[in-house]
């Protein structure tokens, strides 16, 4: 589905990613673990074409994405849920979802009703302004909005960040539901436990380098990696 | 010892240019002497704007107000109160600076575009007053035939006077830019939040910068009176303000001499182009658009990019940061 090969990405003059490579196969949930500032968000932005890498290649469904505008990538089936949510605060929940809908009457699998099924809280607040939702609700809205584009592949950037335990659990369930629905997910997280609960495989990124890659089981067990790159 | 105050080759070049300008009237036809005086006045005006625009990063959208206020003050004191030039002339810039203080005090609370919009509103009010107050300002007719001291009435006399004053002002502005205040102002341009964090009262500095710019704008206004011996409400009109803006852009607003060059190019082009076409503003418009697309740093900025690529890379970074904010 997605193949990232040896990319280097800069913000202006600062070099953020150093030869990052990763693969995500169809139907997988892959997590990208790392501390703040490790390069998770930049990796996501590079894949989405928002901060194109200076070197290296990214292939989505076998086609290189270099020079393709983000909106076209979105139409090819990538969706991005940014870590800071970026809900359109002045628009209502319903409107947030509505503008994301690609061709409302297309056969698309996702529509408002289905998003509300996944996130019942949103249904109650559909006419509230996005800016007036709580942090957790905004997270859900951001995911729901991404789903409205009918993606095959979804980039989730720290969906559990700053959420209360119950909500984290809810989001975990929802990710699993997405997986069940056949979506491919690349999940960036620092919350290892949650991330590993929903993922098939994982990468550990630190200081812009992929340091480690392994199955969930190995990551659970490898205390050293967890201590070194992921805090405690 | 890095960054010498004035690099010797630039000092030499400046002195040579000054000498050439001093001797120019001996050979040049009268009209060219006049046009060059106009360039001095316009260049001084553009530089005074650039002090806040290029060095201060302040969106001074209605700088012409200070130009006009300076010119009108001098003209009115001479014609209405019959005060001698040595009182009226310095009064121009002082009143302009005072106007700058008033307008600035309201505007510095705001940033960027809002600053500019409020300034246009307040400036237009002053324009309306000048335009309407017939008994005093002569309304749209302006004031003509302003009596000046004998030595200023000839084109040569005005030329030398304007040359000297402009040179002194440019030197003063150079000093200011190189002073702690100037350095602080540039720091504010680059990063106002950071300046607050290192103990600089940003609004206060910006206000002072506006007052200084208004002062020099006022000097340019008085120079206009010297050269043309007339004043018009058009000196305070917003379109002129934007034209000065274009001059700064054209010459390069992150360079010291850029606005001089910009003013010279615009005045010269206007004089030449209007001989051949009525559509001179189209020429200006197309030039402006080409400039925005291909030379966003202006002529001087472009030259610097060619010869000092590192500095321009930093400018580029600065632009990125500006855009990010």
């Amino acid at each position: 589905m997605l193949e990232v090969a040896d990319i280097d990405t800069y913000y202006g003059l600062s070099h953020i990613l150093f030869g990052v490579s990763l693969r995500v196969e169809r139907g997988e949930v892959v997590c990208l673990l790392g501390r703040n500032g490790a390069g998770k968000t930049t990796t996501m932005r590079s894949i989405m074409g928002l901060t194109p890498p200076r070197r290296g290649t990214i292939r989505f469904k076998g086609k290189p994405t270099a020079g393709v505008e983000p909106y076209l990538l979105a139409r090819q089936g990538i969706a991005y849920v940014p870590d800071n949510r970026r809900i359109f605060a002045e628009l209502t929940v319903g409107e947030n979802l509505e503008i994301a809908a690609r061709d409302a009457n297309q056969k698309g699998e996702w529509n408002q009703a289905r998003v509300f099924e996944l996130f019942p809280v949103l249904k109650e607040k559909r006419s509230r302004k996005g800016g007036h939702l709580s942090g957790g609700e905004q997270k859900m809205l951001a995911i729901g909005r991404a789903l409205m584009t009918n993606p095959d592949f979804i980039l989730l950037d720290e969906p559990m960040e700053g959420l209360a335990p119950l909500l984290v659990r809810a989001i975990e369930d929802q990710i699993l539901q997405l997986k069940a629905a056949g979506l491919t997910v690349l999940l960036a997280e620092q919350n290892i436990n949650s991330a590993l609960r929903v993922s098939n495989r994982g990468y550990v990124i630190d200081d812009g380098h992929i340091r480690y890659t392994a199955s969930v089981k190995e990551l659970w067990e490898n205390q050293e990696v967890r201590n070194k790159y992921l805090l405690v | 010892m890095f960054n010498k105050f004035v690099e010797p080759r630039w000092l030499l070049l400046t002195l040579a240019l000054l000498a050439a300008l001093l001797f120019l009237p001996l050979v040049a036809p009268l009209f060219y002497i006049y046009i060059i005086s106009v360039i001095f006045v316009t260049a001084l005006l553009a530089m005074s704007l650039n002090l806040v625009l290029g060095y201060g990063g302040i969106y001074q959208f209605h700088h012409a107000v200070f130009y006009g206020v300076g010119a009108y003050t001098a003209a009115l004191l001479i014609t209405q109160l019959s005060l001698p030039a040595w009182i009226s002339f310095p009064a121009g810039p002082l009143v302009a600076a005072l106007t700058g203080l008033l307008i600035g005090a309201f505007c510095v609370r705001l940033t960027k575009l809002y600053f500019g919009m409020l300034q246009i509103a307040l400036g237009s009010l002053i324009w309306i007053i000048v335009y309407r107050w017939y008994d005093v300002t002569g309304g749209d007719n302006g004031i003509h035939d302003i009596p000046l001291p004998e030595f200023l009435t000839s084109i040569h006399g005005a030329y030398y006077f304007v040359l000297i004053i402009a040179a002194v002002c440019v030197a003063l502005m150079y000093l200011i830019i190189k002073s702690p205040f100037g350095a602080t102002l540039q720091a504010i341009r680059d990063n106002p939040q950071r300046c607050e964090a290192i103990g600089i009262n940003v609004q206060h500095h910006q206000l002072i910068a506006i007052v200084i710019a208004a002062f020099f704008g006022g000097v340019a206004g008085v120079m206009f009176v010297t050269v043309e011996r007339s004043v018009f409400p058009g000196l305070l009109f917003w379109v002129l303000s934007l034209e000065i803006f274009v001059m700064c852009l054209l010459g390069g607003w992150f360079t010291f001499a850029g606005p001089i060059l910009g003013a010279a190019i615009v005045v010269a082009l206007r004089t030449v182009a209007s001989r051949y076409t009525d559509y001179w503003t189209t020429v200006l418009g197309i030039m402006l658009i080409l400039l925005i697309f291909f030379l966003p740093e202006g002529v001087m900025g472009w030259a610097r990019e060619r010869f000092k690529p590192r500095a321009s890379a930093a400018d580029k970074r600065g632009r990125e940061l500006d855009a990010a904010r």
Partner: protein
Amino acid sequence: MRGKFFILLTALLLTAVLIACGGGAAPTSAPPTSAPAATAVSATTVAQPAARPIKVGIVDTYSGPPAAFGNDALNGFKLALNEINKEGVLGSQIEFVTRDDKYQPDTALSMAKELILQENVDVVVGTVNSAAALAISSFAKEQKVPYIVWIAKSEAITGAKGHRYVFSTSENTAMAGKAGAEALAKKPYINYWIAGEDYEYGHAIANSAWNNLTALNPNVKKAGETWWKTGEPDLTPYLTAIMAAKPDAIIFATGGAGMTNVLKTAKATGLSDKIPMWIHTAIDTSVLKPLGANGPEGVMGTMDYLFYYPETPENQAFVKAYQDAYGAPPGFPAFHAYNTAHFIAEAFKKAGTLDKEKFIDALAGLKIDSPTGEIEMRACDHQVAENMFMGVTKKDPRFEFLIAGDVVDVSSQAVMPSCEDVLKQRGQ
């Protein structure tokens, strides 16, 4: 790179499209307002003159709101030169150089300086803009070059600010105001409202009319004043407010594009049906023509030139020549410019030399035959003395727009300030 190519391409396309739709869009009534050729142009080429050509520098407005006047004047001037250069003046030709002042006095001054200092013209003429005229006038005085104002109507030009080197071939605000006052004094109105565009011309004409009117009829009272800024797009609120005050009559002091506005709004609000009004130049064709048949009838106006009056052979010949050359009847600027050209030619002939001082001496007091009769350049103040016409707007089957009906002549003696008054104003 592709992007930049695209940019340039579109810029060109945009230009082309605009020009193309312009070419197709407005052929109906537009007179050929061709851009005046900018470099020196000799109007005709008859017999190479032995002496150097006489060079006239024109500074006028060819862009901005009053560009129509500038173009009209230039056409009138060219027409006259065609006639003059057939015979030549002092064995030479009259050439001209033009500059566009964009209706900005500082530009005008700069252009005049170029013409005088660089082009070494013998005479400077021009300007719609009074401020520009005054500015150029003061520079002309300094440089001792004769300057003839042909459209700007400020009375200050030959009045308070007049001097040896400035002339005017246009009627001025003092004359216009007095002409209006003469007419209004005969009417029974007591309460007057004064309204106009807030610029020098408006105020000057209102003052002149009012001062003369109070002198002629001490009973009149000023009920109030309203001023709007030049270029005000919609005058309805102003006129409605005036109607609310119910004056007996209104003196409107406005010109140019503002005139059309006033008449249009007066009609729309019904003001013109209710309250009598006088406006200088209300009967001017350039004002009435854009309104077509929809102009308000019964508006009193004064004017120094109408192409359909007087119906003398001289005027008809002038109108025909102009119409043939430029496709529309001449307006007052063309008339002034036409006269100016003849004044220049005659004055040089009379002076017998190209000397500027002699030219001035010759021009002062010179009389020529204009299309509307003999006119004189009054010696004392260098202001042209010409008859004015007073009329009331009305429909006429011959034209698609309103014209002046019941036209009466007002003699120049009646409307011109006396020489003593002028000299007193000048502080001499």
